[in-house]
């Protein structure tokens, strides 16, 4: 029996999302068609839009569906960056950093949270677009977004929030944050892969990356991926931040066990997502740990893996001043209650073998 603890890569599909996807697969109509079949498809599309808007604090007219989180970030950033300099957090996801290649990086403190003093200093000057993640994908560290948003407002800067990891795992609201745009991804919520969305502050315009047939009010061309979007809507409705306490208890049990055996937790003192832990085992390569745990049936990740599967050095831990790589344990919404004991059994066996080997034993 394998133990899946890589939710930040992708969440397992929620049953509500699965049902919505299956129902949408059988709808023949194109949401843009005028006939009854088209209207039926359109109803499903707009219901999903309502679900997303309601869950994340936007008006339904301000939800633009995309192919996923990467496109959502790219669409918002490319549009809002027009005529502005871009400031992006040093620990942002590659999807954000690649969408703003000329961005100036905002430093983080050693606990991984945004350095607000630096933000304030760097906001002085020409109009800026600030790109910040609500929570980090590798460490789960949550940025002080309310404070950052206030600083942005005071300086006339726009704020784009990458909420891909935070959505569904904590309270995320465009309106409450006072942000200008927000990106989410369906499969990080327990929906299928292939759908995401940009949520916009009312009145903000968005130039499309793909113009096409004028779908999404001209902000994202192309026939909507209805099954994936229906699944995204259902997952957004089903993702219950009240689950957080259960996941946090499991995560804390895992951390307590590892800390007692010599591990460190990156960003331990910072506010973090309830499901995420980045465990650093001094002297042990993250890559080796991920493989060893996988061979023991426990699925975690290290740093950011490129499409070839190779593990690179984590720019997130580097920005936090951590020289060593960590393994990311991220509990899915359906993590079993015995996850800590099963994880710790595999982790301890690995830790024992590695420390025996480091002490000079051959095996």
């Amino acid at each position, binding site marked *: 029996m394998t133990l899946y603890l890589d939710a930040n890569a992708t969440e397992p599909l929620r049953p509500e999302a699965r049902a919505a996807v299956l129902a949408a697969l059988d709808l023949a109509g194109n949401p843009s068609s005028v006939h009854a079949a088209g209207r039926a498809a359109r109803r499903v599309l707009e219901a999903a839009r309502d679900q997303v808007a309601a869950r994340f604090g936007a008006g339904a007219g301000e939800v633009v569906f995309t192919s996923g989180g990467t496109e959502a970030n790219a669409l918002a950033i490319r549009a809002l960056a027009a005529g502005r300099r871009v400031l992006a957090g040093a620990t942002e996801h590659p999807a954000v950093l690649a969408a703003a290649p000329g961005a100036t990086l905002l430093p983080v403190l050693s606990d991984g949270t945004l350095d607000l003093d630096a933000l304030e200093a760097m906001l002085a000057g020409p109009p800026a677009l600030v790109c910040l993640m609500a929570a980090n994908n590798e460490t789960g560290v949550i940025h002080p977004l309310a404070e950052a948003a206030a600083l942005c407002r005071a300086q006339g800067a726009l704020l784009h929030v990458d909420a891909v990891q935070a959505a569904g795992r904590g309270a995320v609201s465009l309106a409450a944050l006072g942000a200008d745009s927000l990106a989410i991804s369906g499969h990080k919520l327990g929906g299928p892969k292939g759908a995401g969305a940009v949520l916009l502050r009312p009145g903000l315009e968005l130039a499309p990356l793909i113009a096409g047939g004028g779908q999404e009010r001209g902000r994202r061309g192309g026939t909507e991926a209805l099954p994936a979007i229906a699944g995204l809507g259902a997952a957004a409705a089903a993702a219950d931040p009240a689950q957080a306490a259960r996941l946090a208890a499991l995560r804390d049990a895992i951390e307590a066990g590892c800390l007692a055996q010599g591990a460190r937790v990156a960003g331990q003192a910072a506010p973090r997502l309830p499901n995420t832990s980045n465990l650093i085992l001094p002297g042990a390569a993250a*890559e*080796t740990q991920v493989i060893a745990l*996988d061979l023991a049936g426990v699925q975690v990740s290290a740093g950011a893996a490129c499409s*070839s599967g190779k593990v*690179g050095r984590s720019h997130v831990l580097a920005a936090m001043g951590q020289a060593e790589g960590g393994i990311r344990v991220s509990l899915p919404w359906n993590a079993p209650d015995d996850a800590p004991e099963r994880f710790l059994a595999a982790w301890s066996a690995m830790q024992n*073998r*590695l420390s025996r080997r480091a002490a000079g034993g*051959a095996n």
Partner: protein
Amino acid sequence: MRILVAMSGGVDSSVVAALLVEQGHEVVGATLQLYDHGAATQKKGACCAGQDIHDARRVAEGLGIPHYVLDRESRFRAAVIDDFAATYARGETPIPCIRCNQTVKFQDLVELARDLGCEALATGHYARRVEGAEGAELHRAADPVRDQSYFLFATTRDQLDFCRFPLGDMPDKAVVRAVAERLGLAVAAKPDSQDICFVPEGSYDRLVARLRPETAEPGEIVDLSGQVLGQHQGIGRYTVGQGRGLGLGGGAGERLFVSAIDSTRRRIVVAPRAALAQTEAVAGEVNWLVDPPVSPRPVQVKLRGREAPRGARVAWDAAAQVMRVTLDEPNIVAAGQACVVYDGDQVLGGGFLRAVNIDRSGAAA
């Protein structure tokens, strides 16, 4: 048992993985990402992983075994590519496949395998590991055409003990391809890899010049008496024994070959072929796979990859940590290449040849 298999994506290591799976072992596949393929081939949009990594993954998927891509770019760069360029800059002839085997492959993968609780590391090399009275022995492969024992001399006795070379007994490559065919491996007909993996276009001198610009600085071509015969466009383009690309014109005289490379004075020393050969050689960075001989021992040695072992006597200078070789017949000794010592099929050890004939550059030397 649990075995780590180094899978390159080629037919040989794919067959190794498949055979071990067939024998019922718990096989774990690993493929080394050694350099950025896209940058090396300078193809826009090429992935950092080349086709070989995708092939390895596909084979592993077909076999139903776990497979991992290991990022060893910086390690490979430091241990193999930089050493490759530095060796040219010293006026010597590098042998990167041995450096790679010595570091990235056997040292690091044996460590990883043990970290993962594996009981052995298997590779697709053509060599035989024989269980001897004194522990594991390294022997030439059954197929003399494919034998790679020369490239494995630097494997330590501890590493050799842990390694397995399942292809060592294969009579020839056709049989290996037939096994791949029988096991339904998609790579059965894939061509053999050629040349140096990190120089896909085969023009290594541009790479060397980029890493060590001094190897592309012009200098003099001189004969053994020190007389200047011409100019060269950088010592990085020459290796000892080379007869082409000297640009000395046809002429009626005897054909000339590179006899020595004096990196300090950026000089290429040329001589007639007969004058190149020597009977004494010294090798450092020695690795013995048997207990070192206490007195000069009659053996056979190979001074380059494509050469049959030839008769010699080898002595171990423990104080200087070098092996001293006296060849039965004179041969060209290119510093930087490996001198591998055999007793029949068995590899006794080896080292890297040292420059000892630099003083023959005449004149001021």
